[in-house]
């Protein structure tokens, strides 16, 4: 378990947050079926850094992007995002 620094609330326990999906898997409603399928069903799933959308579900409920390492769990950056980035 670790802490995530919410852009609005500051450092909070990770259990207050939920993971949604990676930023490259947002499905564009106008995308071609092949591209939409790729976004909906596949992931890069790297053993390293990835940009992930998390939500402070049991806090301020805001969405954010975490650049997080999948092996060390180290969080390199947290960025607030607006409603336009919602999946």
């Amino acid at each position: 378990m670790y802490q995530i620094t919410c852009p609005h609330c500051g450092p909070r326990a990770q259990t207050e947050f939920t993971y949604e999906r990676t930023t490259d898997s947002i499905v564009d409603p106008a995308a071609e079926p092949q591209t939409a399928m790729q976004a909906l069903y596949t992931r890069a799933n790297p053993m390293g850094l990835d940009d992930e959308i998390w939500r402070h579900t049991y806090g301020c409920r805001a969405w954010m992007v975490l650049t997080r390492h999948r092996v060390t769990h180290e969080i390199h950056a947290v960025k607030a995002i607006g409603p336009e980035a919602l999946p």
Partner: protein
Amino acid sequence: MKTPYSAFSLLRGALNGQKHWEPAWRDPEPKASYDVIIIGGGGHGLATAYYLAKVHGIRNVAVLEKSWIGGGNVGRNTTLVRSNYRLPQLHNFFEFGLKLWHNLSDDLNYNVMFSPRGAMFLGHNDGDMIKLAERGDAMRCDGIDAELLTPKQIAKIEPLLDLSRNARFPIDGALIQWRAGTARHDAVAWGYARAADALGVDIIQKCEVTGFVKDGNRITGVETTRGRILAARTGICVAGHSGHVAGLAGLRLPIESQTLQALVTEGVKPMVQSVVMSQSLHFYVSQSDKGGIVMGGDPDNWPSYARRGQPTIKEHAIAQAVTVMPALSRLRMLRTWSGVTDMSFDGSPIIGPSPIDGLYLNAGWCYGGFKATPASGWTYAHTLATGKPHELNAPFSLERFMTGATIDETSVGPFPNHR
């Protein structure tokens, strides 16, 4: 030829101080090329190699393992073996495996301690019972055993369950599969390794694949920490690391890797007779032959390759198990551990050819891989030997996500969070 394990060889050893035993498998140097390379020396990889050699006569096979045999998910699971799925593609696949399980110790000449003690799903309300009955009916239509139990019948099998009506999660009934049970996971890895090795398969440990040798759209071998090894066909069989290894070949899979945790208590006298699971809650409890109560629950629902989980998830599973079987609260936890699971986007595995020639996939087992070991090995060996899927793994193609023919037992949709 290796000395077969038998009562006779044990008696013979008694006369010479048991000095005649040999290592269970060789430690060969990798050759320059093989007919088939299997990446990953877990249960599935070793079973694949064994059936390639035994059923298809392909013995020029290498199994490449980055660490040691039995150190990955085959040694980290909760050892449950069952075929009680509702969807026919799944229960027919796992039932084929269950039949192999029943004869596995004899087949491998290695005691895998398979113990068909029964596995039950508890139902806590009308909705649960309807779903369990539906699942049992679906199984029986395909000739698989399933029996609905009343609370009275459950009490005879598991007297320590809280069967009172004012329980936090009242138990209305259960669906039991009597032919399901547990096996000793290490023995499964060792047994398959020994049997495959005896048929000529090279098991190469401490050999990590770092890249693929490509010729156009064809994979012709792998780069490893022990040099380049060529092969006509290469099979990925790396469980939680499927996304990583497929990524080395430029593939993006419908898989996200997550941590799954399990724990075991101190050893006690027999108190859990069967495998107890729940339709509504998410925990599973069984007792190992050593006496420890083995428990597990949900995966940590975010991506990780770390092999360490957060305590809150464990606490959640323990709380549910203790609520349903209060006597468990008296036990002390002995060990906890985690494994990396390859959570697929419909909860079902992927076994078959990949979009790249010469490269095959066996992945996406979520947290149900152990029970599948013999069936996965059998069908993957068929696929690697013939280039085509076996009828049992044909539904589990990679293309199903594009065509919409997903096999979604829990109807969760396109998320890697299937139970």
